[in-house]
């Protein structure tokens, strides 16, 4: 008598049996009942014939039974028989198997010896031949069934799992088992399947029509790896709201469900884990809705098309099939896999009510197979996390402003600064070579200046007149108020004036409020005195040294010169037996001459000392950079005359009729300035043409 394997629970059944003896699945799904009765078992039968190719192989593989091929359920039954008749289950040789035998003995599973799956108990009964095996086991099976169908009578199970009610299969099909009737009544009340589960030719109505049921039985052609179904239930989430991948869900600690026991032997040659639990396609890890990188992206994104992604766009939340760290994945038969709703539907909340149903329904012990009757109560639409933030118009403005600030900031990248520095050093070298070249050429060739200065400015003329009219008997006070920086220019500009004073033997007293002024001035008049032997420095000059305190010192000098500077730099009394012996006050000097490159210093002398000078003229020798600022004081009469820079010195020398340093360097001075004018003009025109106007600089100082 031929036997076939049940497509669902993989147990051997008689070929002509319509339904599997154990799980009532239809053994011959293709041989549908001729009168189309809506017996739900047809579905199971139909399912059986459509088992995937591998399973049919298994069925055929199971015909020449070797101990490995004895179906689990049969082995279990035999074992129980032995127990009842005082036999001992055989001990497995290797340790690892011992630890799993108790499970096998409990579940009677015969799956192959894959390490991470439950291994069938090794039944040491001689391998029965196929034909007599079928007759015996069916008979025994039926007798066993009658015993177990009376719940109270079943002896206390020795093994913990035995207390589980065994499915009571009443012999031939017309005596329908109780659980089947209940299931029928149950199915009549259950709501229609959720829309996603509706097969295409879904029929309406709440009674589970064969088609509906067939949807359960319909064994997918290939292992389940289809498009993930958008979950209805709230996915189990961790503390901060990210949905936890299925594998990480800690399953409620319910006892091992019976369905594990009905695993048919799978193709050993292939990786069983893949067959049982096919790995889903690698999903993108669930992104935290607010991960750092995303925040920056939405700023960079071109705001011109914020609508690209509708706000309520639903992100396909992929729930990767992970494996628990501690608990090995349950090995589900492919038929059960098809039956089972999408794993993620089984919320923790849902599992408790579904376990009550499983106790009573034919699928007792099969967890999560049946949809709860009140699914809607527990599942709400999953919270979708859109990866774009809701941006209010005000935030839009802030973003715009931030963009502007960032855009306007001119942090120059290091490389551009480096290349800019190289080009500026090169351009600076060219400019310096040009300037130095012109100066060297004119100094060496002593060429005359292009244009002789014929126009003498009024202040220079006034100065010349005042110097020419000085009384030789009265001393002149010179303030050497310059730093070393522009000493060269001031030395050339004041040279001819000092020579005029020396030529007329006028005594000179000098001081300085800067640290190096009096020292440098002493060096200057020492050089000049070498050219004018008649003028003895010791008799005619007096170094009053360094006047401290800036403006405060000048006030003190203006009020009481003798008390402020009592000694010379040689520590001798300055006001006795010297040219200053007749000088009591500042106004007793014939003139006060300030030599400085700083307009402020000149201003201090004008503001602090001039008021105490009475009729004594105040003359200034100033550098070209400060001349424009001295002009107001000359115009208001506070300064009687001034010489400004190289051109002023040259004009003074022309009037005095002497050839001093200013005149000898005037051609180099003039040609260099003209070259500089050309360079700046050309540079300016190039800048105008090349560089683009920057918006910020156009509103330099908004009013």
């Amino acid at each position, binding site marked *: 008598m031929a036997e076939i394997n049940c497509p669902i629970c993989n147990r051997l059944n008689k070929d002509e049996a319509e339904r599997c003896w154990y799980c009532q699945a239809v053994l011959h799904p293709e041989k549908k009942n001729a009168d189309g009765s809506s017996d739900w078992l047809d579905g199971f039968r139909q399912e059986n014939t459509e088992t995937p190719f591998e399973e049919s192989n298994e069925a055929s593989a199971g015909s020449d039974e070797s101990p490995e091929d004895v179906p689990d359920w049969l082995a279990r039954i035999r074992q129980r028989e032995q127990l009842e008749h005082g036999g001992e289950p055989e001990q497995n040789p290797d340790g690892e198997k011992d630890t799993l035998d108790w499970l096998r003995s409990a579940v009677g599973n015969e799956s192959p010896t894959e390490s991470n799956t439950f291994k069938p108990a090794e039944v040491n009964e001689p391998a029965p031949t196929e034909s007599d095996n079928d007759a015996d086991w069916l008979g025994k099976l039926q007798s066993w069934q009658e015993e177990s169908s009376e719940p109270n009578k079943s002896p206390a199970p020795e093994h913990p799992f035995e207390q589980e009610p065994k499915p009571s299969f009443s012999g031939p099909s017309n005596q329908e088992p109780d659980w089947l009737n209940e299931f029928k009544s149950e199915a009549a009340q259950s709501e229609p399947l959720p829309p996603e589960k509706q097969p295409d030719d879904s029929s309406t109505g709440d009674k589970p029509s064969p088609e509906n049921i067939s949807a359960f039985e319909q064994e997918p052609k290939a292992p389940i790896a289809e498009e993930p179904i958008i979950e209805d239930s709230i996915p189990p989430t961790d503390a901060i709201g990210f949905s936890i991948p299925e594998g990480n869900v800690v399953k409620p600690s319910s006892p091992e469900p019976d369905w594990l026991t009905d695993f048919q032997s799978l193709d050993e040659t292939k990786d069983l884990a893949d067959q049982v639990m096919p790995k889903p396609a690698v999903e993108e890890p669930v992104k935290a809705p607010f991960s750092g990188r995303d925040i920056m992206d939405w700023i960079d994104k071109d705001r011109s098309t914020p609508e690209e992604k509708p706000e309520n766009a639903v992100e396909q939340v992929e729930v990767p099939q992970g494996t628990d760290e501690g608990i090995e994945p349950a090995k589900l038969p492919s038929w059960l896999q098809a039956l089972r709703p999408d794993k993620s539907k089984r919320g923790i909340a849902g599992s408790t009510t579904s376990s009550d149903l499983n106790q009573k329904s034919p699928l007792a012990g099969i967890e999560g197979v049946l949809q709860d009757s009140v699914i809607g109560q527990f599942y709400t639409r999953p919270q979708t996390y859109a990866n774009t933030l809701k941006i209010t118009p005000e935030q839009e403005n802030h973003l715009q402003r931030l963009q502007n600030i960032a855009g306007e900031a001119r942090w120059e990248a290091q490389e551009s600064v480096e290349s800019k520095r190289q080009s500026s050093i090169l351009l600076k070298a060219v400019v310096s070579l040009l300037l130095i070249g012109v100066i060297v050429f004119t100094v060496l060739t002593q060429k005359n*200046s292009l244009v002789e200065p014929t126009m003498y400015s009024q202040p220079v003329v006034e100065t010349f007149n005042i110097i020419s009219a000085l009384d030789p008997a009265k001393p002149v006070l010179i303030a050497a108020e310059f730093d070393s920086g522009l*000493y060269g220019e001031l030395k050339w500009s004041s040279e001819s004036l000092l020579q005029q004073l020396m030529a007329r033997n006028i005594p000179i007293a000098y001081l300085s409020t800067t640290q190096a002024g009096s020292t*440098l001035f002493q060096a200057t008049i020492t050089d000049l005195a070498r050219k004018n032997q008649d003028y003895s420095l010791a008799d005619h000059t007096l170094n009053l040294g360094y006047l401290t*305190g800036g403006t405060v010192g000048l006030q*003190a000098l203006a009020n009481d010169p003798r008390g402020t500077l009592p000694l010379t730099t040689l520590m001798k009394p300055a006001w006795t037996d010297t040219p200053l012996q007749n000088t009591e006050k500042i106004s007793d000097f014939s003139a006060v001459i300030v030599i400085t490159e700083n307009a402020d210093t000149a201003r201090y002398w004008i503001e602090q000392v001039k008021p105490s000078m009475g009729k004594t003229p105040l003359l200034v020798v100033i550098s070209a950079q400060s001349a424009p600022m001295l002009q*107001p004081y000359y115009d208001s009469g506070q300064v009687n005359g001034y010489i400004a820079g190289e051109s002023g010195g040259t004009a003074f020398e022309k009037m005095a009729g002497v050839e001093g340093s200013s005149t000898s360097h005037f051609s180099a001075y003039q040609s260099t300035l003209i070259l500089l004018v050309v360079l700046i003009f050309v540079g300016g025109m*190039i800048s*105008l043409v090349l560089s683009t106007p920057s918006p910020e600089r156009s509103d*330099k100082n908004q009013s």
Partner: protein
Amino acid sequence: MRSPIVPIIGFLTGIIILAGYFVPSPVLEAIRTPMLDWAVILSGVAGLIAIFHLVFGVHGRRLRDPEKSHVFSFIVILVFMLTVAAGIFFGINHTGFQKVVTAIQMPMETSLMAVLAVTLAYSSLRLLQRQRNWMGFVFFIAVVLYLLVNSGIFALVTDITALRGLVAGISQAPLAGARGILIGVALGSLLTGIRILIGSDRPYNS
């Protein structure tokens, strides 16, 4: 709690010295003149402390800091000590000691100003790149014009009286702006000084 003594001293000193500007009284002048002298002394002592801190604090610490370059600081400390030793040994008026100014300080500071000429000339080439507005353009024209005035090239046109007046006027033009800026700066200085005298601003650590 900040001690009130320090601001009071600052206030009293300022009021007495300021009063001397406006109230010509011999008694006030007798008090004010030594106080001004003390300010000069304190300014000098502060200079000594700052120089000591510069040489031995700033450069001394850089010598001990492995990351910073030591050459610059080592030379500063060495030259400083040699100069002070020479000054104390020879005296301030010794011609040898004066060479520190005339042969070291002056040549280097003048050379720095000479190098500044090239630096500013190079910087002037990009003048219109930096200040691209009305004010910048007028500034550019003024620089070119006054360089020509300073070079004395307009002496060519001094024969024509009208042009001579124009050149004179051009030389005078900066006066108007200079006066306005000087008055503005004086107003700012005035208010800043008053805030310090009444103790509103306290640059010192009270």
